[in-house]
């Protein structure tokens, strides 16, 4: 059987992508055995006959060349163990050359960096502060992003996501979610967002909100909920992530430098491009603990303002947390720590008592309309 190739050989008459071969290190050089190609023959290359440098896309490959003119052969070694073995066996004169080459790479990178110069210097400073979590700077940058831009961004990702999913167009589930959203959004003072809520057919027990007010609720969540209020609780929490611009804050943190450069230079088109390329990554944003708490607290208040029983979310969590921990996606983004539950309960207790106004739909009917497309376990 052929040995597995661990190197590629280049040269005249060899394939452009390189001929696969198996290379081993001997006391005085390399032994190259071609794998599955008749274009090459087995060859021993003495350390004294070769030159060595670093190469490849990340400069992490060892490039060994030998021969002259048309018979020059170049080997690219990538396997770290092989490179270590080579470094051990090779004479120091050869390695000195390699170190020089490595130094050149370092210097080239350095001069490249110097090119970026002073503008980048300032920006790097900002960026570093970003990475180390200076929320002030994040907020400063986020405050500079117009809602309109945020919507454009969210909408792009939203449409992209929905195009790949089965979206419920009408029916009791859609009406129910719309009713919840309307009751809540009507109570948001100076709301700059036009919220759009879609119900997506999926066993995933979750919901998410994209920057700009684009909300997705999965049917899996609706099936697991025991009342409309439980869904409304999750929904309110998600709406508040949007209102507090948590997604944007997260994104600015994540894109870091690049986004800050864009925002500072007013190149929103560029940032938009970057964010688009991130695509659905946007929907997978995991928020920070403070953001979660903020969304919890403001979410409960919004429910209260909309006269919806505000304990839905915590009920939902507590009911499911025991048996479904593994299978409920909501938990992975929203771990219900004891502290968080405490905070939620304290907030609930502090609310003035009021008689909630029930929804117009009957929850059982909504759930029945979702059918049993998901096999019962």
């Amino acid at each position, binding site marked *: 059987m052929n040995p597995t190739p661990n190197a590629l050989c280049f040269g005249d008459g060899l394939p452009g992508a*390189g001929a*696969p071969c198996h290379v081993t290190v001997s006391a005085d050089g390399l032994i190259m055995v071609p794998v599955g190609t008749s274009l090459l023959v087995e060859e021993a290359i003495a350390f004294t006959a070769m030159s060595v440098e670093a190469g490849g896309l990340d400069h992490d490959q060892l490039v060994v060349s030998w021969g002259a003119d048309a018979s020059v052969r170049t080997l690219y070694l990538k396997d770290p163990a092989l490179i270590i073995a080579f470094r051990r066996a090779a004479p120091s004169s050869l390695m000195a050359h390699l170190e020089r080459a490595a130094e050149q790479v370092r210097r080239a990178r350095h001069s490249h960096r110097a090119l970026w110069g002073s503008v980048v210097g300032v920006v790097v400073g900002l960026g570093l502060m970003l990475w180390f979590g200076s929320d002030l700077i994040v907020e400063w940058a986020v405050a500079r992003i117009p809602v309109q831009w945020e919507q454009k961004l969210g909408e792009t990702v939203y449409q992209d996501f929905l195009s*790949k999913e089965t979206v419920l167009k009408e029916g009791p589930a859609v009406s129910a979610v719309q009713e919840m959203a309307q009751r809540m959004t009507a109570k948001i003072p100076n709301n700059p967002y036009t919220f759009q809520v879609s119900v997506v057919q999926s066993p995933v027990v979750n919901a998410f909100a994209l920057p700009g007010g684009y909300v997705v609720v*999965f049917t899996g969540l609706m099936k697991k909920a025991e009342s409309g209020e439980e869904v409304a609780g999750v929904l309110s929490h998600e709406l508040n992530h949007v209102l507090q611009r948590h997604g944007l804050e997260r994104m600015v943190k994540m894109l870091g*430098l690049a986004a800050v450069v864009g925002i500072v230079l007013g190149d929103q088109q560029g940032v938009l491009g970057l964010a688009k390329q991130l695509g*659905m990554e946007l929907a*997978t944003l*995991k928020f920070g603990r403070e953001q979660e708490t903020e969304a919890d607290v403001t979410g409960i208040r919004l429910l209260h303002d909309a006269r919806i029983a505000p304990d839905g979310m915590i009920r939902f969590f507590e009911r499911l947390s025991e048996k479904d921990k593994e299978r409920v996606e909501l938990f*992975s983004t929203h771990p219900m720590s004891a502290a968080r539950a405490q905070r939620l309960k304290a907030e609930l207790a502090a609310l003035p008592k009021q008689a909630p106004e029930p929804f117009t739909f009957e929850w059982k009917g909504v759930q029945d309309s979702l059918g049993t497309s998901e096999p019962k376990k």
Partner: protein
Amino acid sequence: MKCEILYPGAFPMVRVYLDANETVKAESGAMVAASPSIDIESKMEGGFLGALSRKMLSGEKFFFQTLRAGRGAGEVLLAPTVPGEIVLLELDGVNEYMVQKDGFLAGAEGVKIESKMQSLTRGLLGGEGFFILKIGGTGQLILNSFGAIHKIELKPNEEYIVDNSHLVAWTSTTTYNIEKASSGWIASLTSGEGLVCRFRGPGVVYIQSRNPGSFGNWIRQFIPVSE
């Protein structure tokens, strides 16, 4: 896994035969049809909204789904979104391709895919995307292009300059720099100021004969603007 390209040319499709319990990784949305014995493993480990960091490290979740012949051998038909060619590459464990993320169609079970964050300068300026895929391992790799796919073979130290938005894939033995195009290059509007990649061999660069961004702009002029 055995592959066969159907209808080569602008509107091709790939037929992938899977043995029982064999899997293929396909770009999500690429599946056109399949035998009933094929299951889509759409479970997104760690939850749908799972940790972003994990996703950025592994990159796998969002780009493809795993199709498994879980209930017996069968076949899957895969097709790319855009009109253009499909090319099959054989990975032998040592060759490795960097692939612009729209260029990936499918890969055999042994094909390893990781998404790689472009270094700041490359990523910011490169029209080929903030993330690129680094694909290695063993087995067949299926790429697709917008328009025809063209292979450029580079000898050691040989250089070639490619408009960024025409890049599909390149081997990791090549190095490249992103440069501002000198005048005369058609500045693609999406990559902004017309950026080009200067590749240096040895290795292979696959390019596509059409530029998705330019095509989009061309289409856009026929779409009435509202407001």
